[in-house]
């Protein structure tokens, strides 16, 4: 690692006035990997962990859940209110990395982590690093995106992003001395908007909180992740779903896909078909088969579309049962 200065953040203000050659660190589980691989060569690493007020997890009946961005993934999974009211988040946390990484990695860091494209993490000067080629296009693209790509074809690596979008969460961001709240849907961007970053954060902006509204009464939620190995791995594809049914029809719901696009993906055409759809197995199957119709798979990843449809089929059938 190239030498850097290490400073604990004194305050949000101070941390956000950082210079271009300094980086923010939460748990460091992603950041240190980036620095070890020379993808980042900061002069200064500012540790946000000293901002204790960003660690709180609070539940308010009627209002929902507030997760401090610096809470660890383990702290989120072990919080008793989260276990009682938002079991889907516990389910998601347990699917993330390994226990050791969850004990250190934070919720904010999970949402802001950088992509895992092997060309990006390797010694390839690709588009995302300011080069002029995406090596995945003619290369090994088994784990790349099938929708929303171009000119870069990453998938977003965060599992929590998928569930939090299904739950319609918002992020509180410290920006230019003020706090602003942004729906998580508006936080993530596509490469066509900017192929060098995955979200709207500008230098110095800090995610302070994740706000999760109450799960509407009668709705059921689930997070399902398909990975290549039984222990830990990033998602090949994943699915976050919130569904409210009344016996024979779907009242409303939201479906979000992970592992298929450069951001957690809402298939709008599919989602608009949910309200009023009959919950008999045949109809749910055809609903699932209409997922990702707009996908344009790369040379080695069309299997993802079938996987997603099958996961969705199972989830719709399971959640429609009383």
């Amino acid at each position, binding site marked *: *690692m*190239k*030498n*850097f*200065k*290490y400073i604990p953040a004194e305050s949000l203000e101070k941390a956000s006035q950082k210079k271009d050659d300094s980086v923010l660190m939460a748990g*460091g*589980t992603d950041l*240190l*990997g980036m620095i*070890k691989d020379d993808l980042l060569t900061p002069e200064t*690493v500012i*540790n946000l*962990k000293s901002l204790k007020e960003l660690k709180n997890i609070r539940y308010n009946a009627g209002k929902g859940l507030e997760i401090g961005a610096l809470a660890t993934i*383990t702290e989120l999974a072990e919080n008793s209110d989260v276990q009682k009211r938002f079991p889907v988040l516990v389910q998601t946390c*347990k699917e993330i*990395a*390994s*226990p*050791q*990484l969850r*004990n*250190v990695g934070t919720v904010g860091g999970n949402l802001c982590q950088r992509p895992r494209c092997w060309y990006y993490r390797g010694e390839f000067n690709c588009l995302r690093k300011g080069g002029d080629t995406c090596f995945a296009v003619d290369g090994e693209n088994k784990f790349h995106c099938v929708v929303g790509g171009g000119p870069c074809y990453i998938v977003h690596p965060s599992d929590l992003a998928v569930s939090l979008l299904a739950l319609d969460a918002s992020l509180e961001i410290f920006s230019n001395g003020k706090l602003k709240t942004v729906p998580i849907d508006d936080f993530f961007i596509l490469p066509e908007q900017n192929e060098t970053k995955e979200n709207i954060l500008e230098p110095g902006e800090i995610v302070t909180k994740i706000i999760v509204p109450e799960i509407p009464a009668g709705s059921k939620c689930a997070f399902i992740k398909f990975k290549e190995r039984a*222990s*830990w791995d990033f998602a090949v594809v994943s699915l976050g779903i919130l569904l409210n049914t009344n016996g024979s029809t779907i009242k409303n719901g939201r479906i979000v896909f992970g592992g298929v696009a450069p951001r957690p993906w809402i298939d709008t055409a599919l989602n608009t078909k949910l309200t009023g759809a009959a919950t008999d197995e045949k109809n749910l199957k055809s609903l699932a088969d209409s997922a990702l119709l707009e996908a344009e798979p790369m040379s080695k990843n069309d299997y993802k579309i079938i996987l997603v449809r099958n996961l969705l089929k199972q989830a719709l059938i399971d959640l429609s049962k009383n």
Partner: protein
Amino acid sequence: MEKIHLQINGRNYHLEVPATELLVDTLRERLGLTGTKKGCEIGECGACTVLIDDKAVNSCLILTAQAEGKKITTIEGVGDYNNLHPVQQAFLNHDAVHCGFCTPGMVLSVIGLLKRNPRPNEKEIREAIAGNLCRCTGYKQIVEAVLDVIGQGEKNI
């Protein structure tokens, strides 16, 4: 250089380390605590697992400076040749140590689990060691050893 205070295996250390130094290197190179192993160095194998404030972490993905003021347990603080920890003894009894490279990290992940959950079931044990790669045993003997420690014998396997 960073001035750091760590409590390692019950002993206080006041150190000066470069900001870039990783905890695994402080333990192994600076303090000679080579029981902590270094495998992948990217958070994937768990050989470098130590406990920080009783929680298992990968010491290869944490700066020593991040551990300032914390209580650290390495395998040297768990037991020694003449005085094995019950988890270590159970690993031996169940032939859960083959080449031994994963063992220190594995034992610490198990102890981290037992501190939070003294009576885990097989699923919880397997979840707790999911971040510890073992190329030799196939994990079965390790899980049996842990079940033995918590007094459930092999009946649940």
